[in-house]
């Protein structure tokens, strides 16, 4: 096997592994907020590796110009954070309870205040000291 084929094989395997672990994180982690971390990160990198492998294969092994994979990567990198953002926003709006040892849970209450446009004394201090 040539170096090219080896790198394609490694990229495909790494990609599959990352996607698998990202999905595993969904069932393994304890609450909604922590579960969001798996799909936003691992799945992005996993699909990124698969897309890269696909580009290498079609451009260099099959010898045909194929750049569509750029689009997959572009849409993925734009849509993954936006989806996560919408999901966690809904969770905060619904006041979904985070796991017990989550720190700074008071920020969830402060968020309601900030969302209404009221500034907070503690937060102002933070901003000033910066």
């Amino acid at each position, binding site marked *: 096997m040539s170096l090219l084929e080896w790198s394609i094989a490694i990229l495909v395997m790494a990609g599959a592994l990352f996607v698998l672990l990202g999905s595993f994180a969904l069932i393994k*982690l*304890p609450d909604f907020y922590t579960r969001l*971390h798996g799909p936003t990160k691992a799945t*992005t*990198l996993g699909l990124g590796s698969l897309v890269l492998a696909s580009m290498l294969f079609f451009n260099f092994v099959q010898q045909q110009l194929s750049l569509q994979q750029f*689009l997959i990567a572009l849409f993925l990198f734009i849509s993954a*954070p936006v989806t996560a953002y919408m999901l966690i*926003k809904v969770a905060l709006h619904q006041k979904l309870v985070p796991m017990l040892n989550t720190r700074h849970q008071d*920020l969830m209450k402060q968020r309601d205040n900030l969302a209404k446009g009221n500034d907070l004394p503690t937060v102002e201090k933070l901003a000033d000291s910066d």
Partner: protein
Amino acid sequence: MRLLNTLLPTPARSLLLFVVWLLLNNSIAPIHLLVAALLALVIPQLTVSFRDPQPPIRRWGLAVRYIARVLIDIVLANLQVIQLVLGPNKNLRPGFVLVPLSMTEALPLTILAGTVSLTPGTVSAEILPYQLDATSSAPKYLLLHVLDLQNEAELVASIKQRYEQPLKEIFQC
């Protein structure tokens, strides 16, 4: 020049549409070039009135460096998250963090929130307060959820220095 402005109100978007259409078809046959040009002319015309003005990118070199840095950070983020996922749940120390921001423009804020979601251990939750008035310059905060919160002050400082500072320079805002 004015004619060009009316025909192509947003040149960058037109170029993007043109390239995306050709990539979707994976071909530069004349028919695809024609349709791509048509889309690049018509779609910006239809959507230009929905758009809020955004600050332009002032420093392209820095923007390219920023993208490279984010790509590297995505790889590091994955290794870190995987390590945490494979470990026992009781080792997790999740938490919320509020980051005070010094930017107010919508586009750089969006990019910052997206970057933070893709990079180590953090997911953007909300940008506060809500921007009801596009011209308002009230101070903004970014609420984050962190998977493994160790040193809060360090995290806030690194986000501000690593991502916010370059974005402010790129957009000069």
